């Protein structure tokens, strides 16, 4: 069940952004990918950031994760200015925030076996000294949470898995890490509707278990409507509209939002192809 605005406002803030900006390049090549965006994500909130290709969604996600620098503006993690000035502090930050990326194949080191990948998670969470059986038990649990069989995966490499298995493996990692915040950049774009339903089920279950905040980044307004409490609409690096999923998607105010929604094929409403631009 989605949370009401009231319920949300009573939850503690986990991630806040104040005029966060990213500029790539200089001079004539200057490209403002993210332009002074403000946001406040709360504990166990499900957020979607929706926008066209190139609108700056992934760039914002990378700044929030600390993978690229912020040109201007401030990011607050649990109400304190985020500090990732040293490698050690960054590692500490990553215990609290994790991501599942657009192209599942790019986010793993191809040459690490799947066991290593899962072991790394256990180590990151301070489980390095646990007995071997305990580690295997944790990995087996994580795999079964996403309907994978640990015994069948040991010794395999990521590229030996199908796209769908890969995506589930990424969720198994999140299961082990139990971060406060999960950023999911197009987590379901590569999978069919059936697997998408399974993946969403798993992520939302995880949210309920550990009060995780989930930030979905997507083109898919239907998905945003289905899963989120709040939706932010991004156009050319700016948020043009935000609010509860019901408000933004059933009663959009910005022209851009209206267009995005009208571009999605629907079931009960006619899909009007005559609005296609440039013809």
């Amino acid at each position, binding site marked *: 069940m*989605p949370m009401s605005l009231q319920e949300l406002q009573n939850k503690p803030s986990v991630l806040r952004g104040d005029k966060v900006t990213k500029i790539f390049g200089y001079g004539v090549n200057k490209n403002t990918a993210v332009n002074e965006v403000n946001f406040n994500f709360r504990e166990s909130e499900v957020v979607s950031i929706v926008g*066209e*290709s190139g609108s700056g969604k992934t760039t914002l996600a990378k700044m929030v994760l600390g993978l690229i620098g912020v040109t201007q503006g401030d990011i607050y993690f649990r109400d304190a200015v985020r500090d990732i000035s040293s490698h050690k502090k960054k590692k500490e930050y990553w215990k609290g925030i994790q991501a599942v990326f657009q192209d599942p194949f790019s986010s793993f080191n191809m040459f690490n076996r799947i066991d290593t990948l899962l072991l790394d998670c256990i180590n990151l969470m301070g489980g390095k000294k646990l007995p071997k059986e305990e580690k295997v038990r944790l990995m087996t649990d994580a795999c079964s949470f996403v*309907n994978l069989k640990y015994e069948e995966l040991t010794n395999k490499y990521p590229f030996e898995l*199908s*796209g*769908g298995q890969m995506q589930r493996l990424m969720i198994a990692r999140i299961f082990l890490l139990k971060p406060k915040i999960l950023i999911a950049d197009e987590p379901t774009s590569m*999978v*069919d*509707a*059936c*697997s*998408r*339903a*399974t993946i*969403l*089920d798993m992520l939302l279950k995880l949210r309920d278990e550990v009060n995780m905040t989930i930030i979905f980044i997507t*083109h*898919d*307004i*239907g*998905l*945003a*409507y*289905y899963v989120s409490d709040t939706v932010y609409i991004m156009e050319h690096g700016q948020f043009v509209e935000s609010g509860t*999923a*019901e408000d933004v*998607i*059933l009663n959009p105010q910005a022209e851009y939002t209206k*267009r*995005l*929604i009208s*571009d*999605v*094929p*629907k*079931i*009960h*409403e*006619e*899909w009007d*192809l005559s609005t*296609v*631009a*440039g*013809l």
Partner: protein
Amino acid sequence: MGKIMLEVKDLKTKYVTRFKENVYAVDGVSLEIEEGKSLGVAGESGCGKSTLALSLMGYYFAPLHYISGEIIIDGKNISGMKPDDVRKNILGTEVAYIPQAAMNALNPTQKVIRFIEDVIHAHDKSVSKKDIFDMARKRFEILGLPQEVLNRYSVELSGGMKQRTVIAISTILSPKVLIADEPSSALDVTSQKMVIKMMRDLMEKGYIKSMIFITHELPLLYNVTDHIMVMYAGQIVERGTAREMVFDPVHPYSKGLMGSIIVPEEGTRDVKLEAIPGTPPNLKKPPAGCRFAARCKYVIPTCSLGERSRRVFDDNRMHLCIHSVDFLRETYAKEGTGIAAIKSQKSENLKENKKTSEKTQENASNKSSENESEV
């Protein structure tokens, strides 16, 4: 009934892997498309949709092999033709095929107009470059594509423009059947809509005479195609009009698929998504009897015995399940799940102006005339 543009009878094809194992990815598919109509193919990843697309061209190369069955395009049987003949006389003029991820496979060092020359010259070497350019310019103009694109390299085009260009190139010879495998799945919604609009224009202007559209995105399929077939483990498990398939799916697998639809429409948020447990079977050794049995809620012991016969019902629909249509419909009605359960005012209003005929509306009601037959 219109003229049949494509008829496929019991087509079987397989992959032979490096380890000499057979993968039966298309296992007895039959279908028909009339002139001016489009047929959608839906199913989970790995069900054989792309293999079917590839097989329908009649152009086989390793690891894909033809086993048996017929492909008849506008009365001409192309099964068993030599690959060279298919390339020269069929591809481009009779059938055009747009593979999954085609837009990323364009050679980046070649201008768009050169691809068009390649397509035309494969068929007829004597056409001059000037004639080709004129023809291409005219076609691009009608389709609303900027003419400058002809002199561009593919890397200079945005994703949506690249995909529309690929479609324009593939259909330059006005083929009778266009087979498009996930043509818009990698695009954002706005570019996707442009691609779809262009495909519809191609059909309306008569540049293609029929279309097979493959995608796992069901709302898209619903809006684009006249009929939908659901594929599972190399076989067609159900066929009907787009409206019938979305609002009145009969086969348990189709029912599950339709339960995973998400659209941004009022009320849809309150319907629980149905996730079908498990994964499709391995096609090296498909299970005996119903291939869906391991995942089916309505399975009974006899499901795994012998092949299912196809049940034809409501005139032109077909499904492949041991249960009767009435039993399945009653069962679903009791459960009251799925997208069809949302009765919004909007959908009632839309009924009047939807593309499907009155007759189809009647058919979607609960009374069905059913007979069993081996098709």
